[in-house]
Structures are given as structure tokens and as C-alpha cells.
């Protein structure tokens, strides 16, 4: 105990094709501390921790656990040494019970599983940290916060004293975050060491004892949290003072472009996802949708663009009732959709760039007549588009998978926003368009959306980043549990108010 080093990483190097994810990284974790690992997306934090957990093998460098040099060839080795990891995307078997998930892979004598014994022990462990989990419940029925508790139970059940948490609060409400932090403090006080990966500065200040900042695969600095400020950390993280410079475009909202009336819809699992949602978007305005992801935002977007059935309610665009019309008809009405995780769902990696650009427009003149495709026109236009939208690629015939994340997003924007089908889109639905992008790529997206706003389009902008929403939106609606909790204008809104609304502490008095 005391200041004993639980983990020491020296000179870790990890390369992937085309990129150095960890560049001679040194890191240490002491007994009883909560150590934050801070950095932007792609800084190398998760890779480093995956190495510590035995999921990846380092190309160079040494790992010391409790003073002994070790080689972690797989998670089993890590688990044996008392290391446990909770990943950002939960690694749970949804169709199994909590108990089955917790005891998976546990080495015990005998072939038979003693379900009763384990149920009791898990129950006691959960109680210790104030969690209410029934071991017999199937995991898919749990909330995100509860699922995370199951992940923590998995590690604690195996007696881990080194805990790694990867962006644990990204799926939690503020209330659940509080519960988590209390549990973490308790675990640290019991002598464990906790590594906490995040890109949120506020959390670092709130819960950590020390913080290590990483940027582009390197460690920038390691300091005691009490000896550093938020803006210093931001500086370390990004390498330059963080000022978002955007010309404010005054809203000149015109007529109502889209009206949603009491929309109700189900999620993929059959649970209610939209609960009497009503909204309006005018031309020339940006309506932001705030809220923790998973509260119906994506389902809302899908219902509007015809990819999900609305059980009840209406979608009215330009006075026309388009509820439950096909996605093709919505495209033809001038509705553009930038899907969430475009990098994964919005492009076809094995097809060429030109194919991806014309994914929607291929069936309309002048790009096809009757059933025949006019490739010449498509090639011409594609070349212009990749220049206009700054998509960096050797040729329009390269496969889309050769593009980087930011370039893929530019491709999607080029496809959706350049008016290939009958002119500029009137209504733009953008779902988390800047997620996973670096600052430069995100700025590009912002500028483009503002340009379309000034051209008169109405934009529905869904994002998890409150600061981004405040910067771009004219009005912000908060969604929680499939309902619109409230709508604030930009002047009225602030991070604190929005945060409270997201956890429904304020009534819908607006």
C-alpha cells in the first residue's frame, strides 16, 4: 500500500499499418490512486490500455506489474495478475443473465456451475458499492448504467486490484456518473489503483488524483490533478489554445419546413423509443438535439427520413404529410441524412469513391436514363466533388476503405449536401456528424452546415457535445427517454441548464 507502484509501463511502442499508436510511452499507476488518462480521440489511450490488458502486444517496451516484469499475451494473463478492464463498448453477452456474464471464463474446480453460490456472492458484492442488480436478470434488459455495473462486477469478482475504465461516462446520465465516481473512490480507498480514460476535462478535475495527457501517441505530461487547471489541461491535450472561431451567422428563420407531431416509434429491440415527440424546424435555422445518446435521437432521425416506422404521429414537410413514406420518397423531397457513425454505416468500403458518391443519385437523370447508368457524367461530377469537398484520395476509383475517417465524412457530406438530386437539400438531418473527427475535420463540417443554413436549409443537428451544440444551434431541444424534455433558445441555454434537463431535474416550463 502507500505509494507502491502497481503498474509501470516503460517505452511502449505500438504500430498499426500507417500509424504509430503509441510512441515510446511511459506510464505508472500507484496504489490507492485514481489516475486519469486524458487525450483526444486517436491519441493512443485505448491502445495503451489494451496493451496493459493483454489484448494487444507491444512492438517494443516493458511492462511491470507490482514490481515484476511481465509479458501479457492475452487477457487471461492480465486477469491472473489482477488487472481488469471495462471497455467503452461493453463486452457483454446481452442474451445471457448477469450471473452468466460475471462468471464467464472463471476457472474453478468441477464441471458443474454452482448457480446459487455465485448468485449470493454477486449480490453481496453489488451491495457493497450500493448497486441494485438482480443476478438472474438478462443483460439486454438493463440500462446503460446498470450494464456498466455488471462490467465492474466482472472485474471485482475476480479480485482485480488494477482497474482500467475506458470512457465510462459516455453512456451515463449525470446521476449515474455520480454513483460511479462514489464507487470508484471507495474502490481506490480499499487499496486498488484505477486508470480512467477520458477526454472530458471536468471529470478529470472531479475524480482523479493524477492525470497523464497523451497526444498523437505520446505522453505530453503527468501531473497531480490538484496542481493543474482545466485550461492548462486543454492546452496540453490539443497543443494550442482552444478557441472556436466561427462567424456567427444570424438566424433568419423563414417558414416552418418540418413539423413533427406526437411521434411514437419503437427501437430495434421492440421497446418504445419515441414518446410523443413534437418539434418544428424552420428554413434557415439550426435546431440542435441534445441528450445522452441512446435516448431516441437516432430513432427520431430514422423516422423522419423514412428508415423507421412511426407507430403514431405525423411527419409534415413543407405542408406535405410524409409520415411513413419510403426513404426513396424522402430523398426525392430534398431531405438529406448524415447518418451516425458515417464511417461505419454511411459508406460501402469495398466500393469505389465514385460509387459511394452516387449511392443515392445514381437513379436520377442526368446520371442515368431508363435503366442505363451514365458513368461518364458521374466520373466528371465525382472529380469536381472531391476537389470541392477536399476529399484526399489518389483517384475516384479507389475503394472507400482507403480513406481516413475525416475524408470519409467529407465524402458523405459531398454526397448529401452537394445537391446531386434536384438541387441543394431543403432539410438536413445530421446525426453526430463530428463524432470521432479531429478538430480540423469537425470545423469543416460546421462551416458547411452554416453555409447551408444561410442558403435557407433547415437543419436538425444531433450531438452529444454540449459546447458544439451551443456554438451552432439557434435553438436546442433536449431529448431524454424518448421525450422532448424542453427547448431552449441559444441565448437562454447553457451547459449547466442543458445538463440538468438531460437528467430531467427541471420541469418543462419552457
Amino acid at each position, binding site marked *: 500500500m502507500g505509494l507502491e507502484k502497481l503498474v509501470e509501463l516503460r517505452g511502449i511502442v505500438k504500430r498499426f*499499418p500507417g500509424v504509430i499508436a503509441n510512441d515510446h510511452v511511459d506510464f505508472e499507476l500507484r496504489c490507492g490512486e485514481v489516475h486519469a488518462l486524458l487525450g483526444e480521440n486517436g491519441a493512443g489511450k485505448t491502445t495503451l490500455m489494451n496493451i496493459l490488458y493483454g489484448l494487444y502486444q507491444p512492438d517494443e517496451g516493458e511492462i511491470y506489474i507490482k514490481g515484476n516484469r511481465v*509479458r501479457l*499475451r*492475452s487477457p487471461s494473463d492480465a486477469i491472473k495478475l489482477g488487472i481488469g478492464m471495462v471497455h467503452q463498448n461493453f463486452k457483454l453477452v446481452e442474451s445471457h443473465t448477469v450471473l452468466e456474464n460475471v462468471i464467464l471464463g472463471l476457472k474453478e474446480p468441477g464441471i458443474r456451475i454452482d448457480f446459487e453460490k455465485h448468485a449470493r456472492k454477486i449480490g453481496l458484492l453489488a451491495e457493497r458499492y450500493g448497486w441494485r442488480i438482480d443476478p438472474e436478470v438478462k443483460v439486454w434488459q438493463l440500462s446503460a448504467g446498470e450494464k456498466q455495473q455488471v462490467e465492474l462486477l466482472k472485474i471485482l469478482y475476480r479480485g482485480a486490484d488494477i482497474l482500467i475504465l475506458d470512457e465510462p461516462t459516455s453512456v451515463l446520465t449525470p446521476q449515474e456518473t455520480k454513483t460511479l465516481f462514489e464507487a470508484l473512490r471507495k474502490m481506490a480507498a480499499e487499496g486498488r489503483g484505477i486508470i480512467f480514460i477520458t477526454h472530458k476535462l471536468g471529470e478529470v478535475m472531479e475524480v482523479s488524483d493524477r492525470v497523464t495527457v497523451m497526444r498523437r501517441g505520446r505522453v505530453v505530461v503527468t501531473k497531480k490533478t490538484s496542481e493543474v487547471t482545466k485550461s492548462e489541461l486543454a492546452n496540453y491535450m490539443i497543443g494550442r489554445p482552444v478557441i472556436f472561431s466561427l462567424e456567427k451567422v444570424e438566424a433568419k428563420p423563414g417558414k416552418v419546413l418540418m413539423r413533427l407531431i406526437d411521434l411514437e416509434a419503437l427501437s430495434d429491440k421492440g421497446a418504445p423509443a419515441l414518446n410523443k415527440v413534437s418539434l418544428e424546424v424552420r428554413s434557415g435555422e439550426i435546431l440542435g438535439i441534445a441528450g445522452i445518446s441512446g435516448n431516441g435521437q437516432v430513432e427520431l432521425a430514422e423516422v423522419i427520413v423514412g*428508415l423507421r416506422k412511426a407507430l403514431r404521429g405525423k411527419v409534415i414537410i413543407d405542408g406535405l404529410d410524409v409520415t411513413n413514406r*419510403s*426513404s*426513396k420518397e*424522402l*430523398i426525392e423531397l430534398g431531405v438529406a*441524412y448524415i*447518418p451516425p457513425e458515417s464511417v461505419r*454505416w*454511411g*459508406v*460501402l468500403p*469495398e*466500393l469505389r469513391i465514385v*460509387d459511394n458518391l452516387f*449511392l*443515392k443519385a*445514381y*437513379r436520377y437523370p442526368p446520371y*442515368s436514363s431508363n*435503366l*442505363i*447508368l451514365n*458513368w461518364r457524367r458521374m466520373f466528371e461530377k465525382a472529380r469536381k466533388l472531391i476537389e470541392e469537398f477536399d476529399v484526399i484520395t489518389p483517384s475516384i476509383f479507389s475503394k472507400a476503405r482507403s480513406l481516413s475517417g475525416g475524408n470519409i465524412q467529407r465524402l458523405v457530406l459531398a454526397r448529401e449536401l452537394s445537391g446531386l438530386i434536384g438541387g441543394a437539400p431543403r432539410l438536413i438531418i445530421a446525426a453526430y456528424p463530428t463524432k470521432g473527427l479531429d478538430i480540423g475535420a469537425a470545423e469543416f463540417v460546421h462551416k458547411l452546415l452554416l453555409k447551408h443554413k444561410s442558403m435557407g436549409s433547415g437543419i436538425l443537428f444531433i450531438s452529444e457535445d454540449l459546447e458544439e451544440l451551443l456554438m451552432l444551434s439557434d435553438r436546442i431541444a433536449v431529448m431524454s427517454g424518448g421525450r422532448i424534455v424542453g427547448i431552449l433558445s441559444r441565448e437562454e441555454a447553457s451547459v449547466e441548464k442543458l445538463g440538468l434537463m438531460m437528467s430531467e431535474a427541471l420541469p418543462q416550463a419552457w
Partner: protein
Amino acid sequence: MSLRIKTRFGILRIERRLSYTRMFSAAMSILSIALAFAVVGIILVIMGLDPIRAFSLIFGVYVKPPLLLESIKQSIPICLSALGLGIAFKMNFWNIGAEGQLYMGMIASTGIVLLHEYYGFFQGWMLLPLMLASSFILGGAWCLITGFLKAKLSVNEILPTLMLNYVAILVVDFLVHGPWRDPKGYGFPLSIEFPSYAKLTLIYGSSAYTGLLLSIAAAAAVFVLMEYTRPGFEIKVVGQSVNVARYAGISVSGVIMLGSFLSGGLAGVGGLSIVSGIIGRLRPGASPGYGYTAIIVASLAGLNPWLIVVTSIFFGGLLTAGGALQMNMGIPGSATQMIEAIIFLLILVGEFLKRYRLILERGVRD
């Protein structure tokens, strides 16, 4: 553990290749085939048979004109089915039912002939075009059954297409043992022989040339369809991702049904080429597994229509060679199927070697 295997010589690492040239790809395919023949040679030796004689018989079918023509003839049903499979597989529709669709094509063609011979329908010159159309439609419809099940009920297509193969073969069995049996056939389960104007035109005494023209025309049609038309584009998109296809406004169920119809239709025409080009009538077991060989051909040719034509001739030759091996060396017919399977497996291994590199790290101590 994942990508590392400890061997006596060090650690074997499996790493994904960043890219590979077409030359490399072709070289690997040829290497696989060569290896397959090596394996076959070994088996022959173990069986106490002369591999040199066997191989010379095999290579002979590609070189001696009468055998080469026979190889081409045998390649036609394979080629047509494989072209159909090229469409289906591009769409991620695992059509294992080409064999049954071939049989349905045979039924349709024979039906037209019988309508003419027994009931006087149609003029003679109409027969072949009608047979072409009907075999396409019936073969297409047979595959469409499964296409419909997949599109509307999300049933996985592998088992239904497979089951329908057995059903189709039984339908033919039923017909040639019963209502369609040639009354003058001495009780054998055969249909009447087709009149000459219902058979593929003989040029220099062989239907191989007409058949080859048919193959090439079909390959051209498939090429144009996939590269230059809207349905072809939609098929490719659906094959890549059903979700992205919906997002793009494509009617996924429509595409699946169209694609399955076209795929089965081409195989149906393959059936026509069997009854009109190879056998001259309908009988049980008319196909020695052309529909299954087509799967190997389509995979090996990477779904490329032109490569499919060439590869089909290679496999048509293997079938012919199988016959020669049986007659001259007493090697049972099932050997051909075995050889095909070995080639297939080794080609798949070759696929793996194309995509991944094996690196042996010697003497690395953990």
C-alpha cells in the same frame, strides 16, 4: 494467442497484407491448382495407379480437338449456372440451388418439346426460342421461391435452395418414370428424343460452337447488367450492406427477388443446354453436379463473367477427363468430384495466403 502460433521453429505470425497485385493473385490461383494436382497424383500412386498416364489423359482433353469440343460442351451448363451465381453471390445471396434450377430448365424445355410433339403446338422454328424463354422463366421462378422467402420472411437462403435441388431432381424422376416416359423407349426412364430443330444447332457436327456462343452472349449480358445498369448497381450495393442500401432508398426486397430470379434463370438456360446440347432428351441424373461445380467456378473466377467462361472450360475438361479416366484406367467417376473438391479446398487456402502473410520469427523466447 490470436495471430501467433508457437511451432518448433519459432513463432508463426499471421499478418494481414496491405495489398496485393493481380499478378500475385493469379499466381496464387495457379499455384493452388498445381498443388491440387500434386495431391491427386499422390493419391493415385497410393492407389497403385499410374499418375503420369492419368495426367496425360487429363491434359489431353484440352488439346485433342474432339475432346476439346467435348470439354467445351460440358462447360456450357457450368458456365451459364456460374454466371447466374455470379449475380447471386454479388448480392450476398448464397444460391446453392443452381443444380435444381438447371433441372427446372430442363423440365421447361422438355415440356415445350412434348407440347409440340404430342399436341402439335408451335411451329418447328419456334421451339428453340420458346425453350430458351421457358427455361429461363422456370429456372428463375424456382430460385425466386427462395428469393421471396429471404426478402419477405428473412429466411436464410442456403438451406431452402439446397432442399429445392433434391425436390427438382425428384420431379424429373417422377416425370420420366411416368407421364413423360418415351412409349417406344423399352421401358427405360427417358423422354422421347428431341427433334433436330429443338437441339442446339450443329456446326461441324458439334453443338459445342453454338453452346460457346450462348455462353459468351450470356457473359456479355451479365457484364453489361452488372456494370452499366441500375439493377446491377443496386445488386452490388445490397450485397455490400442491406442497411446502407435502404438508406440509399433502394428497395432491398425488390432487388433480392430480381437478383434471385435472374440467377435462377441463367441456370435454367443451362438446363436447356443439357437437354438440347448434350443429351438430346430428358433423363434422370442428367446433371453430374454441374450446379455444384458452378459454385467452385464462380468462386475461383472471382465472380468475373469473362473469367467464368474460361474457368468453366477448365472444369468442363475435368469432367470429360473423368470419363476418359474411367474408360481407360478404371478410375471411378466419383474421382472427378474428389479432384474438384481438392482443387476447391486448395484454392480457398490460396485465398487465405493472398490475404495474409505468414512470418516465421525464429528463436524468439517468450
